[in-house]
């Protein structure tokens, strides 16, 4: 099979991105275009550069394990006027904390989440399930049929992440030695 010439290739990529309702993976796009993944990626990055340098109102966003078209964030004002700023209601601190536990510790059961947070987290989990940020997978089933939760593709998309490994490292959030020492000191004092 002959390799499509460059303009034809970028045309094909544009057509695919234009009809996709969700991010398209390199593997799938390469297969549709009958080229190798690395050929696809180099053509994609060339196209992406073209959009950036020619100052278009959209760009190629790398998210959720694939690629998609998105309006440039700097066009925010116009999009707001277009009434697209219909952000869903913000999630409460408790729900976000539950989401963090699931994101970093997946797969994880409801009971394990509650144990870590020290409070029953069923309501927060339900909220996350209904938003589609997490799901209970049948493949991750523990003893006694306990179903484990994991984050979804939508979660990655909503957070603008390509893969889970793009999550900020949890180690970065562990309190520093000063906090640990201060805590330790208080615990020590109060108990003696």
């Amino acid at each position, binding site marked *: 099979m002959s390799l499509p010439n460059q303009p034809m290739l970028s045309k094909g990529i544009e057509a695919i991105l234009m009809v996709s*309702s969700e991010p398209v993976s390199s593997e799938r796009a390469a297969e549709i275009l009958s080229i190798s993944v690395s050929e696809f990626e180099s053509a994609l990055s060339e196209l992406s550069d073209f959009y950036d340098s020619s100052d278009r109102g959209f760009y190629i966003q790398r998210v959720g394990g694939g690629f998609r078209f998105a309006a440039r964030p700097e066009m925010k004002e116009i999009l707001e006027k277009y009434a697209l700023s219909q952000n869903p209601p913000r999630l409460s601190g408790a729900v976000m*904390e539950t989401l963090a536990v699931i994101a970093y510790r997946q797969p994880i059961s409801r009971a394990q989440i509650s144990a870590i947070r020290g409070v029953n987290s069923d309501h927060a989990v339900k909220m996350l399930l209904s938003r589609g940020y997490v799901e209970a997978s049948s493949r991750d089933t523990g003893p006694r049929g306990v179903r484990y939760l994991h984050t979804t593709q939508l979660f990655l998309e*909503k957070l603008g992440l390509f893969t889970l490994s793009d999550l900020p490292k949890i180690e970065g959030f562990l309190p520093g030695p000063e906090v*640990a020492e201060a805590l330790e000191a208080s615990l020590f004092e109060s108990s003696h």
Partner: protein
Amino acid sequence: MSFEVETEAYTGPIGLLLSLISLQKVDLWQLSISDLIDAYLAELDRMREMDLEIATEFLVVASALLELKCRRLFPSDEEELDEEFAFFEERDLLLARLLEVKAYRDASQGLVELLETASSSVPHVGMLDEPYLSMMPDILTGITPDRLARSLNRLLVTDSPESVDVSHLPEHPVAISQAAREVLVRLMDIRRCSFALLMESAGSRFEIVVGFLAILELYRQSRVLLDQENSLGEISIQWASDNLTPDEIEEFLEVSGFHLGDD
């Protein structure tokens, strides 16, 4: 509005625990949970408004303390551990746990920031037109009416009936029939006895409760008479059956259905 406790080193939910422990000069091991709740309620009163977030923080702290207290009250089998060593171990566990909770809380703030940044990028949601659309595999493949109903139920049923987890309760081999048998055998000899004396050998509160239920059941069947002079006073139990041999007692227990309570 948040319950901000200010200490020199730290401000926040874990500070709540520390300030409650240190400001009140409460020894962690002597800490009364009711004192903690009083302090918390006083703080709530000061704020004049119930805040779910704060209540949650409080629960995190209180449950951590309760867990520690429980471990303290019910030492494990290897309790011959050096007292000091055990203390260090518990303190480290609490410390590690508090640090973990704080890490996730801070990480959740990071996720909020990611969400906000990402929300400024509005994606293009494309769609195939005909004739390509109908070439795509059908998305309802494998979807049953039941799955549809389950999906809606997950959305609507806010308080799904959940079974109560009783796995933390100790399994006691004490059965009411056994207790009733013992009560009858003892009363057969001494005819009259106080409840306190009858329960003298009980090893746990649970056994006392079972013993009490057994006596109530015997009373209901007119096998014993109960007498109590004033409320909270001593309960006196009197034999009301004709003399029964152990075999007859066994038979009586069978007939009266006590055996059903076994196992």
